[in-house]
């Protein structure tokens, strides 16, 4: 299983990760962070861990892991 970790308070809600995810794993969130932005929410179902979201993010919000062990 793949995993994208979101550093909630770094996000500035530009939407690049949502737009450039080829599998539509990220979508607009509805929780506000302490800087007043709405960070995205992640759904691992279709994630291929390509890293496009993290490479496009201007604020290093996202960390991408491949083959995470799930217990």
């Amino acid at each position, binding site marked *: 299983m793949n995993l994208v970790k979101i550093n909630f*308070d*770094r996000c*500035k*809600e*530009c*939407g*690049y990760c949502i*737009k*450039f995810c080829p599998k539509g794993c990220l979508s607009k969130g509805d929780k506000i962070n302490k*800087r007043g*932005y709405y960070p995205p929410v992640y759904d691992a179902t279709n994630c291929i*861990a*390509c*890293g*496009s979201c*993290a*490479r*496009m*993010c*201007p*604020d*290093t919000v*996202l*960390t*991408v*892991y*491949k*083959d*995470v*062990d799930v217990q």
Partner: protein
Amino acid sequence: MKAIYEKPQVFTDAITTYCGGCGHGIVGKLIAELIDELDLRENGILVWPIGCSCLSDRYYDMDAFMALHGRAPAAATGIKRADPSKFVLCYQGDGDLVSEGMAEIMHAAIRSEKFTVIFINNAIYGMTGGQMAPTTLEGQYATTAPKGRKEINSGFPVHMAEIMGMMPGVCYSERVTVTNPGNVAKCKRALKKGFENQIAGKGLSFIEILSPCPTGWKMSPLKAMEWVDEVVAKEYPLGLIKDTTKEEN
């Protein structure tokens, strides 16, 4: 578990002062990745300009210098000449490089200084509130051009990568952008080439990066990215302009 993308180690935990969707953030991250990859942290000195990126020394845990308006190439010249073994990176925006410090970059190129210049072209003065820059496109709105830039009053946009390509002292000049993951990869390749040219002691390497400024352009970040691809890249064509290092090999 394998990490596909992690925060570069040279980065501190500081949150950037850039607006959401700013191209500076993406380029800054590429620089940090390359510093980690090429192991330049101990031996590198970053020269920051005046502009949105002037507080960048807070984001990188390494030596840095903030030069006066447009004088980053002059400061970098001093650093590089004092200690040629150091890796010196000069990072400038378009208001800084083309308007305030045009003479400095020209003379650094004339002297063929052995450092790397990264030029962020977002066609506007970002930090000061969206005034017209020399790189502003014809017809583009700015706070000092409320009816759009007109050639009769303000002349034509400046094509810096082509100008630098004509200078004999410049060994490498390329224009790239950061509008999608493919272009970000190309941008990283161009930056790496510029860094390696300096490490190999070749002449000045110049990389122009077309970058979105959503706040200055009064657009959403996604709209600004499309505007770079559809409008800005038409005026400033992407691609390699000069590379003399190939012929030498």
